[in-house]
């Protein structure tokens, strides 16, 4: 299967991998058919993502998409991230083969969930 050089680079050298202590928002995305799981942690300042980190179980494209997703999330407004589309994640890894598009879906869902969680916590405090 052919993958983009960007995807391979993120797979080889994942950015912002690992959990975060006391995050402002946490969200997960799952693709039940192949059990892929992505979890994102967000650090938020003034309504924007200051730092995003991830943990993931899945195929290479899902791990690479998570890494790219942390870079997409950094600097984004929470409201913007809560609506992030799969296409934005796919673009960030330089494209995905049709049978691996679920990678972008899992990451988009997880980032949306993390942003919504941060927005909810903000309203509570």
């Amino acid at each position, binding site marked *: 299967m052919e993958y983009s050089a960007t995807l391979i680079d993120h797979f080889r050298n994942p950015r912002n991998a690992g959990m975060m202590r006391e995050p402002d928002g946490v969200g997960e995305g799952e693709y039940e058919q192949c059990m892929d799981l992505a979890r994102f942690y967000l650090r938020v300042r003034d309504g924007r993502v200051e730092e995003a980190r991830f943990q*993931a179980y899945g195929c290479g494209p899902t791990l690479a998409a998570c890494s790219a997703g942390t870079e997409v999330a950094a600097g984004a407004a929470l409201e913007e991230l809560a609506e992030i589309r799969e296409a934005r994640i796919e673009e960030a890894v330089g494209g995905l083969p049709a049978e691996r598009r*679920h990678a972008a879906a899992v990451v988009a869902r997880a980032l949306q969930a993390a942003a919504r969680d941060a927005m909810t916590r903000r309203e509570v405090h």
Partner: protein
Amino acid sequence: MCFRNVESESIVLGLDLKGIATSAGSACTSGSVEPSYVLVAMGLPLDWAMGSVRCSLGRSTTAEDIDYVIESVVPLAAKLRALSPVKA
């Protein structure tokens, strides 16, 4: 080889990048995943079966080849497991 809580496709890709051709016991295509039915029939738990990778050896395979696979796969599996939110 089976790697608990590591997805086989990520092992296959990581080894491929090191010039080692293997195949996954699962096929993550078009929204379906099939862990090796042989391993499942043997009673292997799903968290092991999902991380199964097939290596084929032939007459031309050398001891050095096998050493290279071991040297490559052990740190790769550890790296992927460290990324995973799923812990044993």
